[in-house]
């Protein structure tokens, strides 16, 4: 089994009297350590799927397995804890906490939850991450003093600070110019290789999917393509029935 597995997932949003079926029965499996792109045009269901993988939303039907465990029966507190422990988030509009400076924004997830990290160890780790994303000179700056690219770098460091197994990035480059967007993806890819963190990013830009090891294409809430780069056949996790 993979680190993330979706099994016949449907998501229906009530919208006034009508219902919008944003995801219409989607199954796929993701291998640990992969760099995955979820691609598709606007409205195809990318955000909806990432939200369900990220446990910030729950499917109407079907099951999301994280690390082999089903998540549909978990309550809000358990989901929150699981998000904190296993997931990292990168958002399209960066979503840094405006009153915290760069260092504090990165530190923030470490101050939540029960596990306390040693002070020196924590400092070294955050400093290392800041260096990794190239913001050593900006650690005391507030988000509104940074450029978009810099903000997204902070967000990447923040997503990694709890050493999550999976980092989810919903259109992380959509608010950046293409050169900066490319740099951000390169950075994510580099960290993916160094830390073996599974990255799942969504994009509607067909040109940047090439960087991925595994591409899942969506259209109208359905998977239209699902393949790992080195494989000819559709992607399937080891041990899963074909």
């Amino acid at each position, binding site marked *: 089994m993979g680190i993330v597995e979706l099994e016949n997932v449907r998501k229906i949003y009530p919208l006034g009297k009508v219902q919008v079926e944003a995801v219409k029965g989607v199954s796929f499996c993701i291998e640990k350590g992969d760099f995955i792109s979820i691609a598709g045009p606007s409205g195809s269901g990318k*955000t909806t799927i990432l*939200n369900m993988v*990220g446990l*910030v*939303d729950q499917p109407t039907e079907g099951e999301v397995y994280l690390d082999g465990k089903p998540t549909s029966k978990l309550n*809000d*507190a358990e989901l*929150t*804890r699981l*998000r*904190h*422990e296993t997931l990292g*988030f990168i*958002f399209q*509009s960066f*979503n840094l*906490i*405006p*009153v*915290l400076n760069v260092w504090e924004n990165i530190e*923030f*997830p470490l*101050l*939540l*939850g029960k596990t306390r990290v040693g002070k020196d160890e924590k400092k070294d780790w955050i400093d290392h991450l800041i260096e990794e994303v190239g913001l050593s000179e900006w650690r005391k700056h507030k988000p509104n003093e940074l450029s978009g690219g810099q903000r997204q770098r902070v967000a990447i460091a*923040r997503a990694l600070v*709890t050493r999550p197994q999976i980092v989810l990035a919903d259109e992380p480059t959509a608010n950046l110019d293409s050169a900066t967007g490319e740099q951000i993806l390169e950075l994510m890819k580099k960290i993916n290789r160094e830390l073996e963190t599974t990255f799942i990013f969504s994009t509607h830009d067909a040109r940047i999917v090439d960087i991925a090891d595994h591409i899942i294409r969506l259209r109208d809430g359905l998977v239209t393509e699902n393949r790992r780069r080195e494989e000819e056949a559709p992607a399937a996790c080891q041990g899963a029935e074909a």
Partner: protein
Amino acid sequence: MNTLANIALRNLTRQKKRTVLLGSAIAFGVMIVTLINGFAGAFSANVAENFSDLMAGHVFVSGSEKGEGDKTLSVIRDDSALTAAVEASGAPVRYVTRRSSFAGTLIFEGKKLQTNVDGADLSQETFLRDRLLLKEGSWDSMSDENALILSEKIASRLNVDVGDLILVQLETVTGQANVGEFRLAGVSYDAGIFGQMMSYANLGYVNSLIGLAPDEYQTMGIMLDGLKHTDAAAEAIYGRLYGGVQLFERGVKDEDGAVTPFQALMRQQKKESWEGVKYRLFTINEVLSQIEQIVAALDTTAGVILVVLFVIIMVGITNTFSMVMFERIGEIGTMRALGVHRGGVRSMFLYEALFLALGGAVAGIALALVAMGVISLFDFGMDSPAFIIMRNGHLSFFLPPLRAAANVLIIALLTLVAVASPAGKAAKLTPAEALRTQK
């Protein structure tokens, strides 16, 4: 410091204008209420201390005798038992005064005026000399047997000067008409509406006018180290007197509806009959017991103002925090995604409101204290009509710390109630909703 509390505190600095506005509203409300509380806090003590100065005591003992026709006359003939009881009581006595007094008519060159004259032993009551400043004349001339000190107002109404002879008409303790003659020895600075109360003569001469022997008098005043000792000292002295002399019961209730304990005590003597001198012990607090009702009314008013102001302010707080919640909806979603629990979101809002309330309340109290300090600098003079509620001619304030703390607590609670609903809404949002709704 708790991360979320820290963020809440910093969030207050984001919309400085809004924070300052809401904080000022809270501060203003607290300031008004604190000023009233401070005034009420000093009010009863000031009135009581001023009265005890005028009446020369905190605890009083007066004697009553039944005369002919069941008429009571006020006299203490032999105070050895009283003196012994005061001494034995261990009360912190500064000094003891012995006074007789009458209400009579002063007459000078055809002008007449009703007034109370207190006969005091001025060789003993040096305190009176310090308290009562003379505008004209001198205390030394009080050595004349029939010397009299009048307040400025009475002296001018009679149009008398120091050295003039003033005729007096009065009744003796037994009800006989009598006349006497005073020589004006001094004119004191006016003490406002109580100026009328402040005519002083020698005890011996007053006694002779009202028909008492030179060593007799009517009321013993026991001046203590301060008002606060009053009740304990009264209890102790009463305890020493009890059983030794005839004594009116303390703390009697009057079914006919006496307003004050002192009135009840006075009515009691009309109903009883006895032989010889029977003593009555009372305190300045009993004489002034209605003051407490005024204080209670002031504090109630302050409480009502506090609540009314804060219901208005609460509406503002609720609206503001509903706005704040929508402004920060993306942040709420982000934090929830990163692992902040529902309770965390709620407490972040509650912290923010609490800090705002505490900041406003502390500022309000500080402002009130400054205002009190400034107001109490003004010298209204001893002749101000409001003299009796002041301390030495200055308005004074005393803010009972518990009341201030209670006000802060009320504000904090009301504020928390005011943000409970927006905070609850923020906590209820699912992270996906919050993230989706962000601008």
